[in-house]
């Protein structure tokens, strides 16, 4: 399903939190929402999963204004994995937690149907948590817990996934596995990510939020420019595509001086970014979803670890282009 956020304004406690925010998640695409703490990322997500009603602007999922839909109808389209809530004062079990994903599919009188059981079973399988089904959620490790929450979202059978820091506190392997999992679902996804490297690796496109405004949106390398990284995140850094086709962000040792002025960019010169023109054998196929991304395991090809400077060897043509050309 397609998500369109159009001109969203929001004030909390008389303080503008979102200003004229517009963005789009095309069907099947994975879009990363990046920005420093307090930039309004989580608040923006709240307007999308229908927790906060924006003061102005429209959020459309699959063409309909979500505030014109009922809470239940909206939740049948959009599922979220958030940071809050761990089952409250009760010892909720994994199956019970995943079954909560079916809440929106029932009115007051609905009993569990075969469809519910199937959705829960499929979600448990897909997220690889079937073995944990009888465990109490509080007893799980961080990675297991996030998988369970993702399973709950998938049991909702959504057309749009909203993820708030899904991979926080997870070890690196769990991060990659979770990200691969999201890729394989093929569901349109908007993900808040603090880890820019992970964002670059996972996402087809990025949207950068700064002080409640969208400051950049587009393919990964067009967003993560040294200028933006300096201005928005206050770090000297650069992003580049490496020989294995993966975009990596390289940080300088020192943060930029406070109050960074846009002129101070530490990089050598604004590199002419290779425009995301798809190579001949990597064009956006019928599916906007690229295949599984090459996993950066202990790299088979020996490459020097990238230093602050952009890596010397830029591949002339990326063998795999992770950005589908989105309209």
């Amino acid at each position, binding site marked *: 399903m397609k998500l369109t956020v159009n001109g969203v304004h929001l004030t909390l406690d008389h303080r503008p939190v979102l200003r004229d925010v517009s963005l789009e998640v095309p069907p099947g695409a994975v879009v990363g929402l990046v920005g420093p703490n307090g930039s309004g990322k989580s608040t923006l997500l709240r307007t999308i999963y229908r927790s906060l009603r924006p003061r102005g602007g429209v959020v459309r999922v699959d063409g309909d204004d979500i505030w014109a839909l009922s809470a239940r109808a909206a939740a049948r389209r959009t599922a979220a994995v958030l940071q809050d809530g761990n089952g409250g004062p009760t010892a909720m079990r994994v199956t019970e*937690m995943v079954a909560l994903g079916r809440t929106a599919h029932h009115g007051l009188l609905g009993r569990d149907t075969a469809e519910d059981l199937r959705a829960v079973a499929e979600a448990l399988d897909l997220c690889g948590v079937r073995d944990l089904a009888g465990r109490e959620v509080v007893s799980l490790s961080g990675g297991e817990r996030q998988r369970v929450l993702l399973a709950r979202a998938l049991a909702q059978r959504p057309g749009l996934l909203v993820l708030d820091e899904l991979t926080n506190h997870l070890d690196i392997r769990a991060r990659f596995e979770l990200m691969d999992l999201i890729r394989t679902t093929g569901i349109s996804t908007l993900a808040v990510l603090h880890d820019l490297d992970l964002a670059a690796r996972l996402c087809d496109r990025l949207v950068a939020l700064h002080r409640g405004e969208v400051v950049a949106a587009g393919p990964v390398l067009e967003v993560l420019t040294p200028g933006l990284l300096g201005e928005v995140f206050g770090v000297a850094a650069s992003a580049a595509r490496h020989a294995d086709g993966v975009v990596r962000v390289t940080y300088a040792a020192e943060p930029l001086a406070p109050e960074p002025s846009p002129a101070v960019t530490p990089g050598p010169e604004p590199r002419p970014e290779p425009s995301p023109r798809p190579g001949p054998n990597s064009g956006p196929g019928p599916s906007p979803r690229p295949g599984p991304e090459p996993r950066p395991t202990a790299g088979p090809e020996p490459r020097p670890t990238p230093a602050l400077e952009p890596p010397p060897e830029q591949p002339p043509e990326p063998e795999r282009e992770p950005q589908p050309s989105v309209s």
Partner: protein
Amino acid sequence: MPAVLLALLVAAMTVAVSVGAVTVPLGDVWRIVGHHLTGGGPAADPVTDQIVWTFRAPRVVLAALAGAGLAVSGVVLQAVVANPLADPYVLGVSSGASLGAVLVITLTTGALGGLGVSTAAFAGATGAVALVFLLGRRAGRLAPTRLVLSGVAVGYLFLAATSYLQLRATPTELRTVMFWMLGSVAGAKWEQLPLVTCVVLTGTAALVLFGRRLNALLVGDESAAALGVDTHRLRAALLLLASLLTGTVIAVAGGIGFVGLMIPHLVRLTSGADHRRLLPRSALAGAVYLVLVDLLSRTLDRPNELPLGILTALFGAPFFLWLLRRNKSLDTV
């Protein structure tokens, strides 16, 4: 499990009607109850009939209803304010009801003289809850922490008034007040039961219908919203229903403590967190518990009667401490 609980309840109620200053054989109990319900069968001798049907049966039924109502209300409030320590009185219901009751008991000659204790208690409970709702709102929404803190504040406010009235009361009035505040079903009459039955049964049924959404509320407001629950409307509806249940029970049975705190936790240990199971089972378990406590309250210290609140706390507090030590998920809250 619900069938077992139901059987237990029937058994407990039968025994409770049978045992007392005069013990009536179980068979006679059934015969008399059957006679009154169906109009058929042989009538028992008038004295036994009066003991069973006029005195014991209504108080046993009321004990069951009160236990069920308090347990259900406790389950709901623990989920709605997201606090394992919540009980039916967390929103100030009992302090409001106490003030109403004490006003009537101590000022019987005054302007309120015509009012029954039950009516006054219910009015007081309603007033307290209304006040807590008003104070617990923020930007038009009921915020759990704000609600709990408002409940505490309103509770102390009403307690101040209640204490002042108690100081001015005569010793006889004071005894009545104490007994009322600790809860009792000794004064149960058939006339008051239809209304209470109606409120407890329909209230419980309505809350069971909300079971699936109550489950969603357990994972936090934001996640619940993403699951398709309108958390603010749901919270308001649930609090109103739970308050109605609590207010009704306290109006007819006084401030019975601990049932609404301990029964929900006990049932959760055996039935899990799903409110669609938890609510009906808690209702039955609460009913069984209070029927047995009432039985003890009039047999332990014969011919005196003890207030229910003393016994529910006597059993409830040690249980609660045991629960705290055992339940690891409480540590994470």
